[in-house]
């Protein structure tokens, strides 16, 4: 009641109902891969929630502080306030370690989910016109997520992260001409400067998260505005979106996923140790530890630094320090390539039309090959970052391992890319539905170049209104004082109900024509009966009902027997 009135009062003043009605009716495609981005979104929410708690206890300062607390090996030791407060958070603050670990696990999974989401977008061609802008926003968010992960990781001022920070500083310093100036500007002095931690802190908890929140909003707004893309399928065209409505179907699903994300993150935070800074000790410029790695999402950079041979490269008479190439150049090229990909593909492939239907990954073998090649390359780099761990476990010399990895990083990506290209082509030409069904003949055919005019040309044909597609029709009917319609394809067994009710028959016909151009309309008297539930469902429900009935009966009988015996102390109606 009160809620109703409140809603009406707000609506009277802000006129939100047309907007919300539209938003609640937004349709989300059913395929699970459309929820990957949501995993990232919900990890971000978890990061903000846990981060706020950490901010209450974290002291972002490099001033001296004596730690007194439950961790005996550091009790009475003078360290930086940042480090001391992180150890306090871990050992002395109630729930501090749980929240700290959950924050860190969320960071790892946040970036991982963004990456998986990006891979999905990439291989299905969802970045094509008209969604290039959103691709740019997404890549920017990835960049910011990496930056925020790294600043957060560096703030506690422990030995391990301090070593990482020093490496990044030396990479920035290696930029010709402006390097040392950039470092001085960023740190406000030489490397372990007093300004460093406060600046990292402001960047980490304010600047980057604020930009991220803004970009997430833009990202989602664009998805709503442009509508979702979808995989091709019966009843799915370039002009419609088939799936679940935002409210209530999709909302429930999404809330369930949110709870899943929180459950997994907090379970990890409580059960699996991450970044035990108390063991690593406070950062001291003269000290080091080994093995030493950064978090996985920056490990590719670390791996590249380890792989790059110590060459002395002179450009225009200047010695360019070695970290410049694997550090600055590789990072720059990676993100430039990511930003530029939609445009590169358009220029090289000549496909300038807008797409609402997604590619299946196999539809575009070149994209497949390039993508797999890049992923393999970065995977090898991440493995390289762990060379010291591998060398210890395998008891092989680090240098031999590095030399092997130097070969692998050049060979493996090419092989994997070529293989992916061939497989995609074989899948597309042949009639195997999935990888396991490929035959040798398919593979052999894939090795020959395409004869013009095969699937490629066919797939590129713009969709025309179909004058008569047998079995397809649009049904319209009045429902109270509104009109509804649905699409039906009897041979394929598909029936898709439109998500919006309109006031006149004409409007209903128009929106049906937009979604399914050229399909015949028929008027039907009333809403069709709901589809029968699946067989398993029905059986389950029937058995459930029977079981319930039987157990009720048994309970009633037992109760009666108890009562007749006069009750033994705990009968329900004994006094």
């Amino acid at each position, binding site marked *: 009641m009160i809620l109703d009135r409140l809603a009406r009062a707000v609506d009277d003043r802000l006129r939100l109902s047309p907007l919300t009605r539209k938003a609640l009716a937004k349709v989300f495609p059913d395929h699970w891969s459309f929820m990957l981005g949501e995993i990232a979104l919900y990890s971000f929410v978890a990061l903000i929630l846990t981060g706020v708690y950490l901010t209450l206890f974290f002291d972002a300062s490099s001033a001296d502080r004596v730690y007194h607390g439950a961790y005996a090996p550091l009790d009475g030791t003078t360290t930086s306030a940042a480090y001391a407060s992180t150890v306090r958070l871990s050992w002395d603050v109630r729930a501090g370690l749980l929240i700290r670990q959950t924050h860190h696990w969320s960071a790892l999974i946040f970036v991982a989910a963004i990456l998986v989401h990006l891979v999905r977008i990439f291989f299905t061609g969802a970045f094509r016109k008209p969604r290039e802008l959103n691709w740019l926003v997404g890549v920017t968010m990835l960049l910011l997520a990496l930056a925020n992960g790294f600043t957060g990781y560096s703030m506690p001022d422990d030995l391990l992260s301090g070593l990482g920070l020093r490496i990044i500083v030396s990479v920035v310093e290696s930029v010709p001409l402006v390097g040392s100036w950039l470092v001085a500007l960023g740190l406000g002095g030489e490397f372990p400067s007093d300004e460093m931690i406060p600046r990292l802190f402001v960047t980490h908890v304010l600047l980057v998260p604020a930009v991220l929140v803004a970009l997430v909003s833009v990202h989602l707004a664009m998805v709503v505005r442009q509508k979702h893309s979808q995989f091709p399928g019966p009843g799915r065209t370039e002009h419609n979106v088939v799936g679940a409505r935002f409210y209530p179907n999709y909302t429930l699903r999404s809330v369930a996923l949110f709870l899943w994300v929180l459950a997994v993150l907090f379970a990890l935070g409580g059960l699996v140790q991450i970044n035990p800074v108390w063991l690593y000790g406070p950062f001291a410029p003269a000290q080091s530890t080994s093995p030493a790695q950064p978090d996985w*999402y920056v490990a590719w950079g670390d791996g590249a630094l380890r792989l790059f041979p110590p060459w002395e490269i002179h450009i225009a008479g200047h010695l360019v320090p070695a970290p410049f190439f694997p550090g600055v150049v590789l990072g720059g090229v990676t993100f430039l390539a990511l930003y530029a990909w939609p445009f590169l593909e358009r220029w090289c492939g000549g496909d300038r039309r807008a797409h609402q239907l997604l590619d299946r990954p196999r539809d575009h073998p070149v994209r497949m090959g390039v993508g797999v090649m890049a992923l393999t390359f970065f995977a090898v780099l991440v493995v390289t970052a762990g060379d010291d761990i591998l060398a210890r476990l395998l008891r092989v010399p680090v240098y031999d391992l590095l030399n092997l990895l130097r070969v692998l990083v050049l060979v493996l990506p090419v092989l994997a890319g070529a293989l992916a290209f061939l497989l995609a082509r074989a899948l597309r030409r042949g009639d195997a539905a999935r990888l396991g069904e490929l035959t040798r003949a398919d593979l052999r055919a894939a090795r020959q170049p395409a004869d013009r005019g095969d699937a490629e040309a066919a797939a590129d044909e713009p969709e025309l209104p179909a004058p008569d597609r047998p079995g397809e029709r649009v049904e319209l009917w009045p429902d109270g004082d509104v009109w509804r319609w649905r699409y039906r394809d009897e041979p394929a067994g598909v029936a898709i109900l439109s998500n919006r009710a309109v006031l006149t028959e004409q409007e209903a016909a128009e929106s049906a024509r937009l979604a399914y151009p050229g399909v015949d309309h028929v008027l039907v008297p009333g809403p069709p009966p709901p589809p029968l539930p699946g067989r398993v469902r029905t059986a389950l429900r029937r058995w459930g009902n029977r079981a319930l009935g039987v157990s009720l009966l048994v309970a009633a009988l037992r109760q009666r027997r108890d009562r007749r015996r006069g009750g033994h102390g705990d009968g329900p109606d004994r006094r």
Partner: protein
Amino acid sequence: MGVRTYRSTRRWWHPGRTVVLGAALALAAGPAALAAPVAPTPSGSAAPAPNGTASTGARGEELFRQNCASCHGQQGQGSQRGPSLVGVGPASADFQLSTGRMPIAGEIPQPRRGEPVFSAEEIAALVDHVASFGGGPQIPRVQPGSLTAGRALYAANCAPCHGAAGTGAPLTNGWIAPPLYDATPVQVAEAIRVGPGLMPVFPSQVLTDEQVNDLTTYVRRLRAEHLDRGGNPLGRLGPLAEGLVAWIVALGLLVAAARWLGQRAGE
């Protein structure tokens, strides 16, 4: 005594860690990684039972002749296959024998830790015999020291090789600085004073006896489970092991959840 494998002696692998390590290895290097080398039975393992009538000196000499002389020479003067033991002292001999490093089996670049081949008395006799070659540090006496001082000393002197968390790390030529979770306090002190293999010697001018006590106290504490306050330590392998768990366990679960939810909607 039977065949002994080095895998079975790696007790610093907790069961939980083994799973993760296994995953890491299998992922990064394939099954080859799991085939740990098997050590042949040491030649001296069938040493004669202690002989009540012989003095310890004779016993030590006999054991040495049977088990060590082939590499280190009859008088401990050294040979092609092993260095001279003249002047290494009792601490070194006790360290090598009580950690099961000596006698080494065959040609491996670095002697490895394992179950000691000899009993405590046999070790004492052998140590006495090696001591009779002259010189070298005595077996240190260890007392409880300060944890805090020990942590600082460890960070400054040992962490670059053994890792801040004591996990060990690779050095040059396929040598590794081993994990420190199995060493007893006396062995830690011996290692500090003797500098086995590629490890540097820390004589009393560098680390006083008191500092050695602090160090042994801290190293002993490092293996304590309750330092892993946050849960499963993942072998204390650091960020990459954590990343692996994030990808395989967490993201795996979440993608499965998304698939499940998507499927439920699609039916």
